[in-house]
């Protein structure tokens, strides 16, 4: 499984990933080839350096956070299963899935998509986006030209708008509520070609 020779994906693994994430066979193989092309060390897992080698990611304001999202708590390597699990969040929601009453919600449901985005804000995992966390994200997106106070007032206003229970931070439910008018299904979906 970890040796250099067996970098091929086995059928049963593909089946498992298919069940877990809902990707189709061809999508999984395609993403696997992408995974291997990123994996310079050829050990079946990706490290942070592998991600950082992607040039466009370096200029993305949220690049680091996105990379961190792939790595589970405390670990430094992510295998293909983990890679696919994260990417599954961005699969478009299909019509038949909307109506299916699955035991556990599929990874690409609206709530799970939003949860993924929420976790990118909420670094300390306390289920709340505090003012500091919001400020950090704003600072990353806006650049260096804007003063702290300016950003501070924007952050405050953002929290005021969203905060319904008065705890001066945005909880996940408040986050969902604020984005209810935004078409999250379209915004957070990538069309992985068949």
């Amino acid at each position, binding site marked *: 499984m970890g040796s250099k020779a067996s970098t091929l994906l086995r059928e049963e693994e593909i089946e498992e990933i298919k069940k877990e994430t809902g990707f189709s066979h061809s999508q999984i193989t395609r993403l696997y080839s*992408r995974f291997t092309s990123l994996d310079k060390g050829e050990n079946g897992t990706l490290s942070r350096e592998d991600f950082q080698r992607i040039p466009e990611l370096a200029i993305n304001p*949220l690049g680091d956070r*996105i990379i961190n999202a792939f790595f589970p708590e405390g670990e430094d390597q992510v295998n293909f299963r983990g890679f696919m699990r994260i990417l599954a969040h961005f699969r478009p929601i299909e019509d038949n899935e909307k109506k299916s009453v699955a035991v556990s919600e599929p990874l690409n449901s609206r709530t799970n998509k939003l949860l993924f985005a929420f976790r990118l804000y909420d670094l300390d995992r306390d289920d709340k986006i505090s003012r500091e966390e919001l400020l950090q994200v704003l600072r990353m997106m806006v650049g260096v030209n804007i003063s702290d106070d300016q950003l501070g007032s924007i952050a405050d*206003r953002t929290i005021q708008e969203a905060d319904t229970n008065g705890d001066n931070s945005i909880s996940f439910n408040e986050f969902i509520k604020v984005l209810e*008018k935004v078409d999250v299904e*379209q915004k957070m979906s990538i*069309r992985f070609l068949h």
Partner: protein
Amino acid sequence: MTSGTGPRGRPGAGRGLPERGLLLLLVLVLLEGSVVFPLGAASSPDVDPRGHSEDRAVAEESQNYSKKAFPVLSLDYHHIHVPFEIALWVLLASLMKLGFHLIPRLSSIVPESCLLIVVGLLVGGFIKLAGEKVPPVLDSQSFFLCLLPPIILDAGYFLPIRPFMENLGTILMFAVVGTLWNAFFVGGLLYAVCQIQPGNPSDLHNLELLPCLLFASIISAVDPVAVLAVFEEIHINELLHILVFGESLLNDAVTVVLYHLFEEYSGAGTVTILDGVLGVISFLVVALGGVLVGAIYGFLAAFTSRFTSHVRVIEPLFVFVYSYMAYLSAEMFHLSGIMALIACGAVMRPYVEANISHKSHTTIKYFLKMWSSVSETLIFIFLGVATVDGPHSWNWTFVTVTVLLCLVSRVIGVIGLTFVINKFRIVKLTTKDQFIVAYGGLRGAIAFSLGFLLEEKHFPMRDMFLTAIITVIFFTVFVQGMTIKPLVELLAVKKKQEAKRTINEEIHTQFLDHLLTGIEDICGHYGHHHWKDKLNRINKKYVKKCLIADERGREPQLIAFYHKMEMKQAIELVESGGGFKPPSALPSTVSMQNIQPKKPAAAKPVQRALPQLPKGREEEIRTILRSNLQRTRQRLRSYNRHTLVADPYEEGFSDFIIKKQKIIELEKKIIHMNNLTLPAAPPDSPTLCRARLASGTETDFKPAQQQKGKQSSPDPQAYRPKRDSVPTIQVDLASPQSPDSVNLMDEFRANGSRREEEEDQGLTMRPRGEDGRREQLTRCLSDPGPSADEDEDEPFLP
């Protein structure tokens, strides 16, 4: 803002005195019109020969000059008759628009376009009854050169770029493939029907295939004017609106190519494969060429606007003239003028809006809306007039088959295309969506004008064509236009979201954009987000530097959005409550975000919150105040018209607030010194001063002149202690870079002990920063980013 109810909210007011006057005026204008036109029509054909004869007469007269009585008052209609008639038509159209709102029930059932056509029919009828020749009002010269461009420019300038680009693939499919399908299906089947038509062999059997195809290509294009007119009133959701509207705009290229192709070759009688290939190439040239011409003019306009900071008054002119020239240049090369106009407007908008002043922006917006609305009205009226006038040749078979085929082909086309498109879309189009798209395929005046352009000698069937075109137009506008609104309600189609975009949505949307771009890069998938991001980057790095004057382009979209929001709130505050009434009387419109009702710890009288100031300190304060005040004033004056509060109303407002605050602060201090009691003051007098005094920080806002305080204060400047909990509105008019746009909330949170200040803070104004650094100028309110401006999506016509 609750000002949107308009005349429809007045049920019984239709018969008041002013309205009767308006109706009387309408009738007068109509009568005058129908009298004047015969006069004008009778005289206009004679102008030229008469001109010659007049010359000769003058020549003769100069030879044998006989003295007549000097004419004190004379009538010379020919001199002015052309502009007079044009003005009369415009006046008629505008009065009609006013008139419709007098009958609110009618205008809610019947869309305006239908009413206008009926008016046109009436006017045409009047003129015909008067026995005179109807002026050829919808001749293609005036239509394509004068009436159509304003509407298209308005559409293109305010086109919501983001949804348009996101759905561009779908729109192109509908526009190109859909129109082609329509044209060939209708043309082919029409020809077949005509051939097998039994009975009268004379008329229809002579109809060749190519004229049929030409006719079909004219009739198959969805018309942007009609779509705009009808869809504006049904407030449908953004996706459907942009799909149908985008299709109507982009199919112009197809129509142009098909029209010219078939017109050229219907004389020859056959079309070869080579012609077909040339047609395809021609299509690409027409479409892309049109867009290119438009983009070039757009960049020129953007570049020009960079230098207009000294002559603000002609800024709107550049926008209009460059756009019109783009249209004319495209028409000159037989490229698609509509696409050129759209491209020009869409390209120039973000840069021009970053450069021009707020007033110019308002001017452009209102002029465009005014022209396009008048144009649209005129077009529909003229359609009615031309119907009465036009040479008609009714042929039951032809007309009914045409109408039927148009409907059928549209439905089949939409269903078929959606089936293919849905394979590539993330958000699929539902059956309801498909129905609306199919039902919204209205034909309009462009089809008629194109038919009008046909020459009689090449197309002996021209009259029949025109009749059929008019019937289809009437059918779609009347039947489909009238029933689409109830159908939308019936099918519970998603409506347009009226709420403004919140700052949360703005931030999170940008966040999601970055996130998706990152994920796409990780997957190696060069999708939508990737290219958009690349384009944005190039835009920021190279293009903006070139086209936007100095620092204005650097402001991130988020900050601009935030400022715009704050400014809107400030304006709303003023408009709603005058800003100086007791806060409890403030209407709920202001109580949106940013208002935190704070319960006072107790209803304290004023004096207790103020510390005692020794006399020496008072002097010190006054000198500091005076010098500070001057600096503040200078800073305000150094903003010229391009900066934040360009509106004189707003300028006055902020000045007034500042002055008022200062005066109140000063008064408080003076009272305190002299132990006077002041009469009650409006409770919203910002206790920012009080807060700052209490918290010990030096207030930046200092009273203007001490003299004012010593006078007996007039009422508005009197001071009343507050009793109830007061909503707090923070209005941040500071520049984006102001370092002391200190959030008063923060101050309070920081100084937790000073709870007494929580009572109320009326309008807190942040002073400009006092560092030497040059403040970044905030240019006009409109967003440099094309997508975040919700304002322009509002239907302007009530």
